[in-house]
């Protein structure tokens, strides 16, 4: 195992993983903890997995849900700790507007649909991998994705009419 191996993996999948973890947890700190723990759990086991990427996101989901449950107890205390670190990068004014629009639209989705959207579009997982990660049948994962897009369409149409 070399430094470059895990750093390359993290450079490729880290941003989408953090995005996913942030949608499953209450705070950025929880998401970071989940990502940290999940990665340490995943990395030594990666060679034993049939699909290492799906295993990574499965480990992340488990760690994030654990964090989420733990943080329920200190929810009120940490509400104000929600970070202003944006979910997406932006460099132009258009980017900023689009980013805000998408962030807001994503918040309108039910959690199970939102996670499928994130895993499909930003983590680039197949429906089979998503089904494995979220522990649902493949058809359910695909249906959630379609429902999510249908809900997002009117929410994002503002941008298209600009």
């Amino acid at each position, binding site marked *: 195992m070399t430094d470059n191996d895990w750093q390359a993996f993290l450079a490729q999948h*880290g941003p989408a993983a953090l995005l996913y973890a942030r949608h499953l947890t209450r705070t950025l700190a929880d998401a970071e903890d989940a990502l940290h723990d999940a990665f340490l759990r995943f990395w030594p086991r990666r060679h034993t997995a049939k699909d290492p990427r799906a295993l990574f996101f499965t480990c992340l989901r488990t760690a994030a849900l654990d964090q989420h449950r733990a943080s329920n107890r200190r929810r009120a205390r940490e509400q104000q700790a929600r970070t202003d670190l944006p979910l*997406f990068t932006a460099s132009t004014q258009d980017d900023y507007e*689009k980013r805000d629009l998408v962030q807001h639209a994503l918040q309108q989705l039910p959690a199970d649909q939102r996670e499928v959207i994130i895993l499909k579009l930003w983590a680039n997982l197949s429906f089979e991998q998503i089904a494995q990660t979220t522990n649902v049948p493949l058809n359910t994962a695909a249906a959630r994705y379609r429902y999510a897009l249908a809900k997002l369409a009117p929410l994002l149409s503002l941008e*298209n009419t600009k």
Partner: protein
Amino acid sequence: MTTNNPHEHIERTLADLTPTPLPDYLHTRLAESMDNQLTLPEKLLGIALSLATAAALFITISLTLTLLNAPPLSAPTSTKTSAYATPADLQTLLAAK
């Protein structure tokens, strides 16, 4: 190949956005944790190898010293050149009587 995906533009709009990279401090934290994970077995292996090397060296030196100190098999066990008493020995014995 044409696709009949009514939400293609929505997918493109979303996928065009790039998730925020990991903060530097998280990367540093992960690097430290990974280092710790890597060095522990290596440290244990290093200690085991050092002990084995030290033991082998000790045995080699001990054997060498033992062989160097041991008298050669063909060497006489006495400083006397003969096992028989010399006339001087007899004289001494007689004088003692």
